[in-house]
């Protein structure tokens, strides 16, 4: 039997009278590559914020690896294996590429705050292997040569990749990618798809959950797809099933599936 990484039951998020997410339930299995689609304003990003702990739900339960986490802080979600990227990239702009990735290793290097303050822990000693692992990760993402540049100076595509690298550094069991290919040209997008697939294949236990507007990308990557509309789950199935679904077609009416 496969393990359930994340289980959500009747998760709701209301902003005033607006029901951004209105009762979402799902079970995500370990090692899957899962897509989340839906028309604009369907509540996809809000759902990601809820499931990754950035925003607290109005009601409903969320379990990460069997442990109830709804209402906890984002860092507690992170400690239980969740990691994410943001739709509007949020890098540490005035820090270097290397430091951005080291940020992802926070949990491995953050052994004791007191020791750190007293100057008893440093990247050179004790947690030295963190530096090495960060270097390896940068190489895997093709960012090693630029490691000492400030994040703010990176190209758009590199920023997206760095954000994923940073998330991977925290060794997540569940990785949320919020429109990873947004704003990229076809070639960059293609490369990114390859990168995500490679990441996922190399980390057999990693579950990837991604929002993507580009239907080609989602259909190519995902093993299963959740379709959201007006804050509700309207369909769940394989890419083929989604393609054939009238409900989904209906939701996108006015827009189009190829958009």
């Amino acid at each position, binding site marked *: 039997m496969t393990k359930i990484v994340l289980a959500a039951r009747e998760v709701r998020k209301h902003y005033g009278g607006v029901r951004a997410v209105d009762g979402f339930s799902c079970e995500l299995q370990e090692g899957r590559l899962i897509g989340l689609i839906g028309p604009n304003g369907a509540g996809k990003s809000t759902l990601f914020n809820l499931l990754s702990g950035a925003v607290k739900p109005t009601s409903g339960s969320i379990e990460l690896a069997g442990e109830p986490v709804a209402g906890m802080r984002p*860092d507690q979600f992170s400690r239980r294996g969740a990691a994410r990227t943001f739709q509007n990239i949020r*890098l540490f702009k*005035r820090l270097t590429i290397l*430091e951005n990735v080291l940020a992802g290793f926070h949990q491995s290097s953050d052994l004791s705050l007191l020791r750190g303050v007293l*100057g008893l*822990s440093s990247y050179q000693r004790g947690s030295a292997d963190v*530096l090495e692992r960060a270097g390896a990760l940068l190489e895997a993402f093709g960012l*090693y040569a630029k*490691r000492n540049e400030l994040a703010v100076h990176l190209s758009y595509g590199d920023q997206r990749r760095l954000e994923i690298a940073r998330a991977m550094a925290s060794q997540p069991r569940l990785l949320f990618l919020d429109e990873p290919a947004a704003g990229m040209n076809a070639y960059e997008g293609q490369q990114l798809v390859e990168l995500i697939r490679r990441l996922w294949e190399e980390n057999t236990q990693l579950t990837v959950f991604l929002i993507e507007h580009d239907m080609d990308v989602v259909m190519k990557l995902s093993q299963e797809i959740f379709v959201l509309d007006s804050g509700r789950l309207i369909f769940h199935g394989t890419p083929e099933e989604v393609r054939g679904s009238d409900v989904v077609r209906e939701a996108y009416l006015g827009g189009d599936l190829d958009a």
Partner: protein
Amino acid sequence: MNALRKYALPLLVVLALLFPLVVTNAYYQRIGVMSCIFAIVASSLGLLVGQVKLVSAGHAAFFGIGAYTSALLTTKAGMPFLVGFAVAIVLSGLVGFLFSVPVLRLKGHYLSMATLAFGIVAQMVMLNWEGLTNGPNGVPGIPFASLFAFELNTDVRMFYFTFALLALLLWGLSRLYRSPVGLTFQLIREDAVAAATLGVNVTRYKVTAFTLSAGIAGLGGSLFAHYMAYINYDTFYPLESFMLLAMVVVGGMYSLFGPVLGAVLLTAVPELLRGLADYRMLIYGVVLVSVLLLRPQGILSGRPKHLELRPKEGAKR
């Protein structure tokens, strides 16, 4: 240029060590001591503002708590200096901790307002709790600082003592800023939300920074009290907090030495231009506004030296 950078620090240290030997004028030596003390306090604020982006607009309160603690323990309770000094650090750190735990939930401007209000309340306590602080009369007759039997009863001795403490502090801070903890501070400064999603317990780190900073400010306060021999509430008014902020921003808040430079400049220059004594505070204001306009990152714009990974032997490119 590189050579200059490499030798700048040792050169500065040597110059500073020679300073009280070459400059024998007591007035200038006094400025030297005050510069060191304010460099310590400004550095404590630099840790908050430049590393974690917590703008405390009431830092004079912690400076004052340190000064009063040390002054009262040595005068009223007859404790030796070192005890007063240690308790000053611990107590102002503790007050900083107790204040920061509830207040650090606030962000940006709201936090600044809360710290400003705290500074004002703290000064009112110094003024009105007459039984403890002598109220408006202040605390006179504070003994010299002393290291056991060795009294720091001259400007020269006090200069070396404060300078040594400043050097020690900067050494510690430079290690801290480059450590995993320092990096975490900077993550919070850059984007607290993103930091939290990577597992950073933001509040815990902010409280740590605040406690540490308040303790260091208290250390500066203790030195100040024992050097001046007399303190009253008037030194710890809200404008003093603003001047500390000015030192940090003018010198360069992201840099380790920025607050030090700012403290030395804003302490020494107005004193040296004695003819302009009346314009002192005006100069502070003008310098603050114009430095922001011309160099928003301050005079020293560098940041703590990067962590570097050297290219590995045979590493693929």
